[in-house]
């Protein structure tokens, strides 16, 4: 969801340190007179204002004459512009690009940036020795296949001390000559020689707590040498650059952690429930706002129904991602209780308020029932879902919009509608339909039209292709919001594959359930599964009857598996345990565990369901057409 505050930058050094430094020294233009001096990549970018007196101090000597006031003013003017543009950078590359544009050619002819390897992101203090890697400007030259082994230089002795001290020095400072030569060696190899000491400044990049690398500023032999005051200029440039890198590294770390956090909290795969096919997409926001709080989910419910969820925590930050994770978990828990959609949103709203009043989110919660072919939907301030009918008509579903999660005290309303076989439901977040140039409703209409057009080309477009088609409405360019998309194609389950009974809990109920099961299995031609199924039904029903006070339910469902569900109004969920004398309940589950392909027990708001599944042997499976025609038997 787009909001004006808390726009985090995209990844800085923290997220991809390897890519930043993995470049070879040999790619750098050597600081020789024959080479063009400026490595700045952005040809169209405005260079920094000239430093017209850059050479004048050399002409006048290093005296403190009154005539120096004007050059000093020019220096300040230059620094003012240069530092402001350096501070503008939002990530590492941008910061360094601005530094280059500010420094070359106004202040130096070539600039080399070395960053500590690794570039630490914590608050730990730096200590010698310092390990550096040359950083090349963007766009990086394409690394050659043999470029994997990049230069990694350990800076020894005096130079390391000077770097840690954080003050710029000339190349001719005592005790650093050989270290500087070694630093520049890969760059200079084969071309030119080390500039003389006063045409070279080593300016440490010192952040708030630590040294992050160094800038080497070079002047050609045909240009006047640096003077003493240039050390102050270099110091200013380096300090602002270092703070920029610090900021970028921290932002980058936050963005990457939040991105990883968010991805970890989205479903790694969708369930594959019978009667509905699912597809999903998640796209992080590009460039400036990587992190969002969008999520989606699909949760199987008893009776082969499935809950379809999409939500969006407001804001773009690690907090949004963290809140998203908590809300998603809450929704899963509430869905597990098989609450109706409006109650799920009601409890989610309450939970969001407990998490903190500033956490707002939108959420749409739908339950698809493949047997009744109905859809129940409730909404908390989320954009409306779109239903693509089997006849190609695309409909924006009318669902009472509701208030966002976190507002509190507002009732939600569930609406029920037909979900015909062959129809496709599309849930999405506002990033798909809303942008700086497009309001939500224009976007929703665009989405509707695109779905209609897609169905016009192909009556029932494959789900994955349909998702891609839908994302196509975004067009090229940057996204300023993340996007979650969940598509559900309704296949339905024919009612003749389902059997359902209410049974009063009585001593003879297990026997009755067994007979009803046998009848259904005969009807379905599954006599080969009779013995095991009857045995398990009998065990599970016996358990249910022991605690039930109202009629229990027995549901049989035939797809590629035979699923049996026994529901009762007691929330006491049976556990497998070693049989104790006089203990009947737990023992039956050992039998179920041994005979069933899968089984489980789900606590519901109204009681519980114990279910088990057996795979139907291939030769007994009904050849079915997908999607099923909507007609009933």
């Amino acid at each position: 969801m787009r909001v004006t505050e808390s726009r985090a930058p995209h990844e800085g050094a923290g997220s991809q340190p390897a890519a930043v430094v993995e470049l070879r020294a040999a790619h750098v233009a050597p600081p020789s007179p024959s080479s063009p001096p400026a490595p700045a990549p952005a040809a169209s970018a405005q260079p920094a204002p000239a430093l017209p007196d850059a050479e004048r101090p050399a002409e006048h000597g290093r005296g403190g004459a009154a005539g120096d006031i004007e050059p000093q003013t020019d220096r300040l003017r230059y620094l003012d512009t240069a530092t402001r543009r350096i501070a503008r950078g939002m990530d590492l590359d941008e910061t360094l690009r601005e530094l280059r544009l500010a420094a070359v050619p106004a202040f130096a002819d070539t600039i080399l940036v070395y960053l500590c390897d690794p570039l630490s992101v914590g608050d730990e203090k730096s200590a010698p020795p310092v390990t550096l890697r040359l950083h090349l400007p963007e766009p990086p030259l394409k690394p050659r296949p043999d470029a994997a082994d990049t230069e990694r230089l350990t800076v020894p002795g005096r130079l390391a001390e000077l770097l840690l001290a954080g003050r710029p020095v000339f190349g001719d400072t005592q005790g650093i000559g050989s270290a500087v030569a070694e630093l520049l060696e890969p760059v200079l190899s084969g071309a030119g020689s080390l500039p003389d000491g006063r045409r070279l400044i080593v300016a440490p990049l010192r952040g708030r707590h630590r040294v992050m690398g160094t800038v080497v500023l070079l002047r050609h032999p045909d240009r006047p040498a640096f003077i003493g005051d240039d050390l102050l200029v270099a110091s200013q440039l380096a300090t602002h650059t270092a703070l920029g890198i610090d900021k970028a590294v921290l932002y980058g770390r936050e963005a990457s952690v939040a991105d990883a956090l968010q991805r970890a909290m989205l479903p790694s795969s969708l369930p594959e429930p019978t009667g509905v096919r699912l597809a999903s997409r998640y796209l992080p926001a590009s460039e400036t706002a990587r992190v969002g709080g969008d999520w989606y989910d699909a949760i199987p419910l008893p009776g082969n129904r499935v809950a379809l969820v999409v939500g969006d925590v407001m804001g773009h930050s690690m907090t949004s991602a963290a809140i998203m994770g908590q809300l998603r978990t809450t929704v899963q828990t509430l869905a597990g209780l098989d609450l109706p959609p409006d109650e799920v949103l009601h409890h989610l709203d309450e939970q969001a308020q407990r998490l903190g009043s500033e956490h707002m989110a939108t959420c749409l919660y739908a339950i698809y029932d493949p047997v009744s072919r109905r859809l129940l939907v409730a909404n908390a301030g989320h954009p409306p879902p779109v239903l693509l009918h089997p006849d190609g008509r695309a409909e924006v579903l009318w669902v009472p919009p509701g208030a966002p999660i976190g507002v509190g005290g507002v009732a939600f309303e569930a609406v029920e509608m037909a979900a015909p076989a062959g129809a496709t439901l599309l849930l999405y977040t506002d990033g798909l339909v809303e942008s700086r140039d497009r309001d939500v409703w224009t976007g929703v209409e665009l989405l509707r039209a695109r779905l209609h057009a897609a169905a016009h080309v192909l009556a029932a477009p494959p789900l994955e292709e349909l998702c891609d088609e839908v994302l196509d409405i975004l067009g090229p360019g940057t996204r300023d919001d993340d996007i979650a998309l969940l598509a559900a194609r309704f296949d339905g389950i024919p009612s003749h594959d389902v059997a359902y009974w209410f049974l009063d809990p009585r001593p003879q109920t297990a026997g009755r359930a067994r007979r009803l099961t046998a009848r259904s299995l005969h009807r379905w031609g599954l006599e080969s599964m009779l013995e095991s199924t009857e045995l398990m039904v009998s065990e599970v029903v016996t358990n249910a009857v022991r605690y039930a006070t109202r009629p229990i339910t027995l549901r049989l469902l035939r797809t590629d598996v035979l699923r049996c569900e026994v529901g009762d109004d007691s929330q006491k969920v049976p556990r497998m345990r070693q049989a104790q004398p006089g203990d009947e309940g737990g023992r039956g589950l050992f039998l179920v565990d041994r005979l069933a392909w899968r089984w489980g027990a789900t606590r519901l708001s109204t009681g519980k369901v114990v279910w088990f599944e057996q795979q139907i042997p291939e030769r007994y499976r009904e050849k079915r057409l997908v999607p099923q025609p909507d007609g009933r038997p």
Partner: protein
Amino acid sequence: MGSGNSVGSGNSGADQENARPDRTGQAEAFDAIGDRYDEAFPHKEGQLSAGEWLIGSLPGGARVLDLGCGTGLPTARQLADGGLDIVGVDLSGGMVELARKNVPGGVFHRLDIADARPGGTPDLGRFDAVTAFFSLLMLQRAEIPLALRSIHQLLLPGGLFVLSMVEADVDDFAIPFLGNTVRVSGYLRDDLRRVVEGADFEILEETSYSYAPAIADVPPEEQIFLRCRRRG
């Protein structure tokens, strides 16, 4: 809730005459449901096929009583269109209104089906056939054998009776139904046959359907249709 009642126990028959269960709630629920009933239960193949059987089995102008006629659709209209003389009763005044509108040729009364018996008020007379599609399940189990005996008496000798029920082993069980709550009773198939035969009907044919209502709050159901003839 009489969950302990055994099938066919007519032991409360004596109370029955004095203390009729209060079904005001049921009537109100169906008043509120109205037309939505037909939307939630489309594709009534079993019911239509039973109607066809009656039309084919009875002479034109034969009198048929539809117990729990609801909106009059599809059965009362089908039978009227088939040339039969249709009388419908329903507990819900709203439903009776709808039935009168839907089937102008029929005669409809607001009446508890437990009160439909010869010489009752109104006196419905006697019939060549009676239908009770998913209506006896609105009674408590103890009332159902009595209602069957009344139906027996409402029929002329050899008269036909078509009954449909949802298969369930429950008595006076409150279930959510189209946004309302109704109380229902049911039998498993063999028990239902026993009760019907116990009321002196001969079962000519039995069919069953797995049916999924087109509504989220009503679970799928096993529907049993019995085509019967009055013995004697």
